[in-house]
């Protein structure tokens, strides 16, 4: 079991992609000698500024683009294998939905591509629509959707087959802070159940809370890689977390610390970040001040629970 948990689900060696123009002349080197390995059950972040080759890498992993050089091993198979794609969920950078279908029709259609039985298709569709908060809009044409709504439907579509590996290209782009928070909570919950998640983002605040490991790309090349906690740790500092004390006690405490360890100690009051504040305000507004903050978090679709 432990061995399985630590095994690699995705291995990329010296991956290179050069885009050519119509006459086959090289134009852009979008990915350049990328090495990656993603372990089962972790959340892996592919970070980098605009145009650094994140989306290109993901399309290579899915067999949508053909690599110029290098190799990819994905779940004991190769990108583009039908058997491999049965176990993958993919959310593209922009949701790319059929404009004239409704969300329900969209999900039922993708369900048919996975060969789910009619009953299973309907059940999963209903659960996912509820989970992504689209039940009320289930019968409107997707073409009229706002960016965030399309994003939610894109996410629902990626989860339809309860994938082992979920590949998300900027999952939180276009979502409101509540949506962002919900997605992050959902991803964490999925990872805890054993789903492997590979995501890209340049919204670092989003990634920071959920990723286990990251690679930072720039100009198609990996520049830093490793465990997020190790990368961000400042080895020569530590913080002490306390309830608010009165002024006299505080002064005495600081005094003691300075005397015993002969170093500078400082005290500050941590503040909430804007996202936490926003989420609290909205949740209070929807539930009444006394309700528990969890009340606004939608329930995970039953078929995704393991």
């Amino acid at each position, binding site marked *: 079991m432990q061995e399985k948990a630590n095994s690699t689900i995705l291995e990329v060696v010296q991956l290179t992609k050069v*885009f050519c123009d119509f006459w086959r002349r090289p134009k852009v080197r979008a990915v350049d000698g990328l090495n990656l390995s993603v372990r089962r059950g972790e959340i892996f972040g592919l970070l980098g500024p605009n145009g650094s080759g994140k989306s290109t890498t993901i*399309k290579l992993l*899915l*067999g*949508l*683009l*053909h690599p110029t050089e290098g190799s990819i091993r994905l779940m004991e198979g190769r990108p*583009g294998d*039908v*058997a491999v*794609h*049965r176990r*993958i969920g*993919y959310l*593209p950078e*922009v949701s*790319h*939905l*059929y404009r*004239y*279908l409704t969300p329900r029709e969209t999900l039922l*259609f*993708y369900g*048919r*591509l*996975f*060969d789910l039985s009619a009953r299973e298709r309907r059940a999963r569709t209903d659960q996912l629509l509820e989970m992504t908060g689209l039940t009320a809009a289930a*019968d*409107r*044409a997707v073409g009229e959707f706002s960016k965030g709504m399309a994003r939610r439907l*894109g996410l629902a*579509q990626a989860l339809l087959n309860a994938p082992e590996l979920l590949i998300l290209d900027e999952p939180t782009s276009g979502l409101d802070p509540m949506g962002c928070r919900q997605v992050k909570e959902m991803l964490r919950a999925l990872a805890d159940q054993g789903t492997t998640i590979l995501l890209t983002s340049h919204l670092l605040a989003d990634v920071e809370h959920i990723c286990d490991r990251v690679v930072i790309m720039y100009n198609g090349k990996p520049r830093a890689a490793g465990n997020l906690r190790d990368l961000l740790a400042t080895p020569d500092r530590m913080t002490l977390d306390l309830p608010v004390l009165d002024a006299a006690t505080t002064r005495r405490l600081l005094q003691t610390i300075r005397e015993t360890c002969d170093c500078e100690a400082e005290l500050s009051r941590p503040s909430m970040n804007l996202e936490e504040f926003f989420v609290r305000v909205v949740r209070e507004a929807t539930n009444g001040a006394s309700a528990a903050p969890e009340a606004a978090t939608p329930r995970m679709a039953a078929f995704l629970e393991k």
Partner: protein
Amino acid sequence: MFRLRQAVALAGLTALEALRQPVCLLLILVSSTLTALLPFLILHRFGEDGKLVRDSAFALHAVFGVFVAGYAATTALSRELESGTALVVLSKPVSRDCFFLSKFVGVVGVVGVFSLCAGLTTLLAERVAERFVNRDGVAGFVTDGQTGALLIAVMVAACVVGAVVNYKRQRPFGSVTTTALLGGLLLCVVLASCFDRTGQWAPFATRLDWRLVPVSVLITLGLVVMSSLAMTLSTVVGMVPTLASCSAVFALGMMSDYLFGLHATESLWAGLLYSAVPNWQHFWVCDQLNAGGSITGGYMGLAALYALVYASALLCLGTVLFRQKDV
């Protein structure tokens, strides 16, 4: 079995998406309405009405058909590649071959719906057209105004049904109107074959010129070849170049006999081009009818074989190109 169900789902969606597009409906409606109006536009040509109406209706069928086929194929492939929906579908357990070929089947479905509308309208318009009748005390040129009015009414009614269903149920106007139009035309054909042109009851199947059906079918076969060409081009270039190339090949293929056929025996190049460019003349057999004959089953079979071979060759090329494509 699973592959088959996938293909059905993909082809169905392709057809549905195309039929829900306003452009497709516009092409279907304009060609049907023009065909329906032909008997009233072409008047008093000394009994030649039937022939003129028929020829013009088939020409409308072919020309609008080329646009329907080109448009449906490009929305099915170029547009999907540009808009990115193909990205999502190909990330599902769908092989590229299955995707490409299912899209083609969907496009053929759209062409089929268009051809059915065009064919039925042609059948009815020919019946409406003025003809000399000498029977039961009636002697003179008769235009079947009732069927004509019914035909126009069907066009209007289809739009009204589409609008009402869209208003009440929020269903897409395009596909509902097309379905209503098809249903209305079928009803019209049934009614028209129960009464003769003077409005008297007559045995079924004697009152319409059924020889027109094989001609429509042949044009449809030509359109299927056109669809396969448009699909294959779509794997390489975008929508506008595809449509332009299709129109060019259509024009070349119509003149193939004159441009290349005459020199095919003398020049190797002319011979090669003569066999490479699809010859639409094989699918254009109106003159046969005008000479009073009808289209034989044997000819139909040969034309179908020609279309099959041509479309298969193009689709094989398209499949190979699509496999190598960066989506």
